[in-house]
């Protein structure tokens, strides 16, 4: 891959407005994420972070403006996009093993009526290795801890070999070990040229793992390089004046 291709825009938002039916949720979003870069979606509860991720997946319609994914429409790009949902949205009693969950990442590329090949199996095993859970392959998904399940879901996304990775609050309720494993795996994907969109409430992680930040609360309160956008003023505007503390290079939002 040439340097030129590396820097192509993976995600373009052009005055994009997103709505559920007649209820507008996000208005006038504007920004670009390039291949190999990560953007953090930051905003309070109900800001529309999950909605934006669903719009990028083409599951919620863009009513005005445009969302372009890998040069095409969201629906056309699905083959190269992987989505990591919050682990706690999935039924922990479901009888499915960790390796089966990871293999689900290959389904799209395997296609209808076919079974996983040896190559698919190797890719799934490698993906599980990358999140450090190879030893749990045979366990039932629901028997893992929340943070480990989140890592399994990331492995599923890695197995899909995406060019754009979308993660919805992957760090919620995750301990330091799992957080480290998730961050490492994301960093490696970026190195390999994937673009990453991650919603989070943790500003430290935005600093640590993301090149850009999109501040959201129904509107866009900033979209650009992390250091420029994550200022106390903009954060205060985004969070509607809730208290903010600055500690060293860390910004902490105290939710009240």
């Amino acid at each position: 891959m040439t340097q030129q291709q590396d820097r192509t825009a993976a995600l373009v938002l052009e005055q994009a407005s997103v709505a559920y039916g007649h209820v507008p949720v996000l208005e006038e979003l504007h920004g670009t994420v390039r291949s190999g870069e990560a953007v953090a979606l930051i905003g309070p509860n109900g800001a529309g972070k999950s909605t934006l991720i669903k719009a990028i997946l083409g599951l919620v319609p863009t009513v005005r403006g445009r969302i372009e994914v890998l040069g095409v429409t969201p629906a056309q790009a699905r083959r190269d996009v992987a989505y990591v949902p919050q682990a706690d949205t999935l039924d922990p009693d479901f009888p499915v093993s960790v390796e089966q969950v990871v293999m689900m990442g290959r389904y799209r590329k395997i296609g209808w009526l076919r079974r996983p090949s040896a190559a698919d199996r190797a890719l799934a095993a490698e993906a599980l290795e990358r999140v450090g859970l190879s030893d749990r392959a045979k366990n039932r998904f629901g028997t893992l801890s929340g943070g480990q399940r989140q890592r399994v879901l990331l492995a599923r996304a890695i197995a899909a070999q995406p060019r754009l990775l979308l993660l919805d609050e992957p760090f919620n309720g995750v301990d330091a070990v799992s957080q480290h494993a998730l961050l490492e795996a994301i960093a490696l994907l970026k190195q390999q040229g994937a673009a990453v969109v991650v919603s989070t409430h943790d500003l430290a992680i935005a600093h640590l793992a993301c090149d850009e930040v999109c501040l959201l609360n129904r509107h866009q309160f900033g979209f650009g390089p992390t250091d420029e956008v994550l200022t106390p003023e903009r954060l205060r505007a985004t969070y509607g004046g809730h208290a903010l503390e600055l500690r060293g290079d860390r910004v902490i939002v105290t939710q009240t």
Partner: protein
Amino acid sequence: MTWLDSTVHRAMIEAALVGVLGGVVGVFVIARRLPFFTMALTHGTFPGIVVAALLGVDLYLGGGVFGLLVVLAVVVFSRARGQDFTAATGIALSGGFALGVVLVSAQDGFSKDLTAYTVGDVLAVSTSDLVITAVVAVVVLVVMAALGKELLLVAFDREGAAAVGLPTAVLDFALLAIIEVTVVATVPALGAILTVALLVGPAATARLITDRLALLFPIAAAVGVSCALAGVWVSTQWNIAAGASIALFCGSAFGAAFVASVVRGRLRSTVDVPVAVTVPEEAPA
């Protein structure tokens, strides 16, 4: 006089077929938490039976076709905002049953046909019934094998399935239609009320025995066949209703597996206690 001319032989084959079918399809019924849908489906096909009786066509054909309409209604209703299968099922199926009652009350003379429909009689199955059940079993198993991984993904993570572009509504319809066809094929043997036993019991029993999906299907099928054959055997020995004895065997199998799992769980937790001591990696500050 062929082997199939014996009532008991036909009943055994029918029982084995619906046992496999109920066990295998039941794995998805349990995993998707659809026992209520399955139960209600038997009532929802009722108007189809009544209409078929009015028109003089095959009752199960009528029930089958009407059941597919009900399944379609459930899929459509469940896509409305804030609804899920449970609410949509309640509405579509009570509505269907009410329609059947209205049709019945406007006419007379169904009572005999309808009794056979509600209670079933595996000892009364004809060779053509057997052929139909066998065809249904083959079609259902082939479709489930063909769509296995897609059905699994939609069942486990429907948003994730939609995100990779799978047609979730079509796959929902496919699964519910598989359940519906299985119900209709099982009704002549077990009756409308008891059919649910074979679609829920063996798979729920298998779920107590194993966590592994690949093992659930064969175990559920084996439990289903065993219960169905045991039920037929008991009913011919002591001349009791076959459908009811099959359902009782399903219940007993579940009860036995449940007791076994509780006992095993007790044993395991006693053994685990000394192992469960962990050393924290860092002392708390």
